[in-house]
């Protein structure tokens, strides 16, 4: 694993891997959303509003996948001190927060015509809003730690610890509709079984794949940016010393 620890080697790989993820991701996501908007039949109860499914569900999945990425990368950073792990964790925060916000916004728009309300404080909605606030906290903390490091205070582990602790919310979001009575319905797709008709399921799976590739491409782009930042910082410091 430490073979990728060399940032130069990682950057060479990221340069071609990033468009390799972003381009097919954008094509698949746009295609699946267009499929969902124009070709899918209306749902028996929800009618036309079912089309929000193809943005809402992939965003929810990536909001949670984003924090899982942060948690795993933080673990690798803390235990193995892998030099790129902390960068990967920080790079996943902004895309993860963006997808979480998209999920909350589309969910709210969907809830108005179907449930009859913009927002309720049930277990699923509340735990997902907490996820968004955790992202905000993480982004602020990571920024502060980076400024401290740039000021020569030494690298701080507090960001990684926060990333691990925040992961406790992920299983709570996942189980919230099972543990507690909630207005949000239980999961439609569980271990190999789906109660979504094939007419909706295929565009949904393609949309999820497309959005995931976009997410991966964005994380690589942000990792490149963070590494470039660190390089510039180091170069400036050397100049100042000379």
């Amino acid at each position, binding site marked *: 694993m430490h073979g990728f620890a060399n940032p130069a080697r990682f950057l060479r790989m990221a340069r071609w891997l990033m468009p390799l993820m972003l381009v097919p991701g954008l094509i698949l996501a746009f295609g699946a959303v267009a499929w969902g908007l124009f070709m*899918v*039949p*209306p*749902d*028996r*109860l*929800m*009618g036309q509003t*079912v089309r929000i*499914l193809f943005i809402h569900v992939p965003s929810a999945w990536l909001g949670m996948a984003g924090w899982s990425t942060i948690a795993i990368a933080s*673990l690798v950073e*803390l*235990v*193995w*001190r892998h030099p790129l792990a902390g960068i990967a964790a920080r790079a996943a925060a902004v895309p993860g927060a963006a997808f979480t916000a998209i999920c909350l916004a589309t969910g709210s728009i969907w809830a108005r*015509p*179907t*449930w*009859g*309300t913009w927002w*309720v*404080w*049930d*277990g699923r909605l509340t735990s997902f809003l907490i996820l968004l606030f955790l992202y905000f906290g993480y982004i602020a903390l990571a920024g502060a730690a980076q400024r401290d490091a740039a000021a020569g205070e030494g690298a701080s582990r507090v960001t990684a610890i926060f990333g*691990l*602790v925040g992961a*406790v919310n992920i*299983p*709570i979001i996942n*189980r919230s509709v099972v*543990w*507690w*009575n*909630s*207005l949000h*319905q*239980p*999961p*439609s797709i569980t271990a190999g079984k789906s*109660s*979504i*008709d*094939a*007419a*909706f399921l295929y565009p949904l799976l393609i949309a999820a794949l497309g959005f995931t590739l976009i997410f991966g491409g964005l994380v690589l782009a942000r990792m490149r940016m963070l590494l470039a930042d660190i390089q510039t910082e180091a170069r400036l410091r050397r100049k100042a010393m000379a």
Partner: protein
Amino acid sequence: MSTMIKPKHQRLVLIILALVALIGAGLLAAYALSKQAAYFYLPSELVAKPPEAGRAVRLGGMVEKGSIKTQPDGVTINFIVKDDKARVPVRFSGITPDLFVEGSGVVAEGRMEGTTFVADNLLAKHDEKYVPREMKNMTSAEAKAVIAETK
């Protein structure tokens, strides 16, 4: 006898211990919340332990088939919310959400008055199934046959 533990392994053990403690605390908190964090009462819970009269609560369950009756004033409806154990009569005046239909889920916000639940607001709760409109009147076997044909 000197056993050297690699610092890497020491950190791994420490973090695993911390995570176990953290997950344990999380589970305990979730368990303690298991009653309070429920968004609504089920009819059987409301019947078994009625809240004091006038306290605002939410009742969630299925709208019994054939139970929706519109009163002569045209805006008040009576219906029955049930689960597998109990049935609670509900009264509501106002506009119902589009998805409020018999045999579907509902969450009513209101209070108990005697044995009737008086709702100020209705929220529709739908199930986790997504089915196209043309197939809603078919039995699941018929729908499967149509899907098999179109494949």
